[in-house]
């Protein structure tokens, strides 16, 4: 029995190790977390939290990456397919993908992010039900796919057909809202580095999402963080996956252009 368990365990480990081993060189040198004044949230962390992110054996977000790795190979839906059936080895096929999301999507005529793209693939190709936004499965898959681009610079396209959506996202970022009557920009553009009580205000960059937030003791998507920020401002949030948050995600991603993908980042 023990031997069977051990064998199963070692088999699982070997199944997991190849994609992990093929990832970008990690940790990155500290200088890579700042690009032309744009600073990753990593820059504002205490050293202990940075170490947590740097070390894959300590990073609690790696559990989500591993869960996503298993889901990548899991056959679901009427078409009898898994992600791997078409996309094979994620370390090769998904490398660089999350660095380009969110993006304009012609089929939708709007902005699509990684979460919604995974669900479209599930529905259209796998004939499987979409995963609930913020579910462990969807967080796992986005973390696993994001992880394949770790260390690569974010390259977000906002010209051409994406431009009007970028403008809407930017407008959201500068709009005062809620009972506090404060905009995203007032803190994250103007006050990054200052102390809000015991917290250091960051630039609000999203290059490490989905991320592990110590305060939540769990992973979270970009849209969960938007919701948290909005309600902290006592502003009515928008639903996960809403057009408002997709446009905002596009603007905020562009705002952090060139920053390395850090998925799964660890934040306070």
């Amino acid at each position: 029995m023990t031997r069977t368990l051990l064998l199963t365990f070692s088999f699982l480990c070997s199944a997991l190790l190849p994609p992990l081993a093929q990832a970008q060189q990690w940790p990155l040198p500290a200088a890579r977390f700042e690009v032309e004044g744009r600073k990753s949230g990593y820059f504002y962390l205490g050293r202990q939290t940075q170490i947590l992110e740097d070390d894959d054996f300590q990073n609690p977000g790696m559990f989500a990456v591993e869960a996503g790795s298993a889901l990548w190979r899991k056959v679901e839906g009427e078409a009898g397919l898994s992600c791997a059936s078409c996309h094979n080895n994620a370390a090769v096929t998904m490398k660089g993908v999350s660095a380009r999301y969110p993006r304009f999507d012609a089929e939708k005529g709007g902005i699509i992010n990684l979460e919604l793209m995974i669900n479209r693939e599930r529905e259209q190709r796998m004939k499987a039900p979409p995963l609930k936004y913020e579910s462990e499965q969807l967080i796992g898959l986005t973390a696993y796919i994001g992880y394949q681009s770790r260390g690569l610079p974010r390259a977000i396209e906002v010209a051409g057909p994406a431009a009007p959506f970028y403008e809407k996202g930017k407008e959201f970022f500068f709009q005062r809202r809620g009972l506090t009557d404060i905009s995203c920009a007032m803190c994250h553009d103007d006050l990054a580095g200052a102390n809000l009580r015991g917290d250091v205000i960051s630039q609000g960059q999203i290059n490490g999402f989905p991320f592990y937030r110590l305060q939540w003791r769990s992973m979270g998507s970009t849209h969960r963080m938007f919701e948290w920020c909005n309600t902290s401002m006592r502003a009515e949030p928008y639903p996960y996956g809403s057009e408002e948050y997709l446009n905002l995600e596009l603007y905020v991603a562009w705002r952090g252009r060139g920053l390395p993908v850090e998925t799964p980042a660890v934040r306070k």
Partner: protein
Amino acid sequence: MVRLVLAIALLVAAGTAAFAQQQPAPRVIEVNTPPLVPYRIVGNTIPEPLTAQPGDPVRGKRVVTDATNGTCVLCHAMPLPEEPNHGNIAPSLAGIGSRITVPELRLRLVDAKRINPDTIMLSYYRLHDLTRVQQQYVGRTYWAAQDVEDAIAYLMTLK
């Protein structure tokens, strides 16, 4: 070049003269947004208290240090060593009672944006011109009228 300098000098002189002659009366704005207590803004002040009951500095200290409701120490340093982690976004409130009058402080707490529209300072007693307030806070203010008067009474003790 000389002509340009002369022209500017003339303009400045004319402006100064006009200002000296007019001495415009301070702007007066009546604010009436029920169910809030109506008040009158005169220049950068609200001269009259919002409530008949005088401010209570002991209660006021509790109001301004309520961590669940926009406490001052989020952004300001305060002479309160027992409170951890004071913010450094805004000026220190040490000695505020010596630098400001009660009517000035009242407007700054009620609606600081009347003084500086771009300020990040919260408006603790205001309902108008807000965007997408979270449902559970619609129609509510950070503080009640008496909280404002109590907070003033406390802050004015910081000499």
